[in-house]
């Protein structure tokens, strides 16, 4: 029996993730308390707060978080060092590590802003390559926007939605969180998932049995689907030979990459457009790259094995260039460090 499952959800509805407590975790962790505070009193207060106060909150909380998150910092540092053995990272690693913690906090406050229905105060400073998306949509076969887990993606999606580009997000309904205790896992995990759903809204969970079909339907209707290419743990949950992940070297580790979306792209004939969103609600940029040049004639298998490594290499170079913006440093639990 898998550790989690989605209760059968009627088509088109948001599935409820049922979490089974992991007996290896401690009963209680500091993060449980932080999430309790964040999800209840602070979220409720934030609904009434002017956006300016969020920035003040960031400044107050950041130094505290820098001190409290030593285990996350250690994991980030280990991952950065592994990447540095194979690649060039321009910035000082301590600076990147501290910057990532700051961005963790900023993203938590940006989520609060997004949770407000009006969500004012999103400042998009530049959009590049929108023509690539428009051209792809004009062909009527839809587009997959492919990105890594960069902090700015949720605010960018909301901005694109307002511009008339609604995007279906594909998300893990049971994201791993090794730092939460059993009490938090039991009582706060589900409210957190629902909170995220309130922010993302237009989404399908990978645990939904109709996930692939819903993606296909959106593409066939000429719509847009956003996929995280670096969703390694999600890739490992694949339940069939066809969806089996492809393991590739990535930032000094060997990491599983999802292949199911490539098969959907092959069958639907949609465009696959790499997307990069950087910054936070105070100022962010959205960049669409030229659609990936993928050959569909050779069949789905060849389409995946020939196309995916190039997309992964492109994402890796973006992460190395914007190391402070990638939220998965230190979280890639299923990666194997390269010798």
């Amino acid at each position: 029996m898998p550790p989690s499952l989605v209760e059968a959800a009627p088509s088109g509805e948001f599935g409820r993730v049922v979490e089974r407590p992991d007996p290896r975790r401690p009963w209680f962790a500091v993060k449980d308390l932080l999430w309790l505070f964040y999800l209840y009193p602070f979220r409720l207060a934030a609904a009434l707060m002017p956006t300016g106060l969020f920035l003040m909150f960031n400044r107050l909380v950041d130094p505290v978080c820098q001190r409290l998150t030593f285990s996350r910092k250690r994991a980030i540092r280990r991952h950065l060092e592994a990447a540095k053995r194979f690649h060039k990272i321009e910035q000082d690693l301590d600076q990147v590590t501290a910057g990532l913690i700051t961005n963790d906090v900023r993203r938590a406050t940006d989520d609060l802003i997004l949770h407000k229905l009006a969500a004012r105060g999103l400042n998009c400073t530049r959009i590049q390559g929108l023509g690539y998306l428009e051209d792809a949509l004009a062909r009527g076969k839809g587009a997959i926007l492919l990105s890594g887990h960069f902090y700015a993606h949720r605010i960018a999606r909301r901005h694109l939605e307002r511009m008339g580009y609604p995007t279906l997000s594909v998300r893990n309904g049971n994201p791993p969180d090794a730092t939460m205790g059993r009490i938090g896992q039991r009582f706060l995990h589900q409210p957190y998932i629902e909170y995220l759903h309130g922010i993302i809204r237009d989404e399908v969970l990978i645990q939904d049995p109709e996930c692939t079909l819903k993606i296909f339907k959106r593409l066939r209707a000429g719509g847009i689907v956003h996929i995280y290419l670096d969703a390694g743990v999600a890739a490992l949950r694949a339940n069939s030979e066809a969806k089996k992940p492809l393991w590739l070297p990535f930032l000094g580790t060997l990491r599983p990459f999802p292949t199911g979306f490539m098969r959907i792209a092959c069958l639907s004939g949609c465009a696959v457009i790499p997307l990069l969103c950087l910054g936070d609600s105070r100022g962010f940029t959205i960049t669409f790259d030229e659609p990936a040049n993928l050959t569909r004639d050779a069949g789905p298998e060849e389409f995946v094995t020939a196309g995916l490594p190039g997309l992964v290499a492109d994402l890796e170079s973006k992460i190395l260039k914007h190391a402070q913006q990638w939220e998965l440093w230190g979280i890639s639990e299923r990666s194997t460090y390269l010798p």
Partner: protein
Amino acid sequence: METIRDDILVRVRRVLIDSLSLNIEEDDLQYSESLDQVIGLDSLAVLEFIAALEKEFGITIEQEKLELSLLRDLSALADYIQSLSAAPPASDTPA
């Protein structure tokens, strides 16, 4: 009409086996069997099945019909394909 439907059902069954390279004989696949029993709930396999069906019958399955509930039921699927074949093409419909 029954003969047409039976013929469609036979072809649906063949498309299912061929498109998913299933290691079963056509005769072993009962008409009453649902897709779950044959290939589980692998929705990616369902997509490959859809693509092969559309190619075989020269149809496009309507957006609202793209549901597992229809696709997993071979018999209902044959009825649906027959209804599509019976309907006149949109261009032939008088204004």
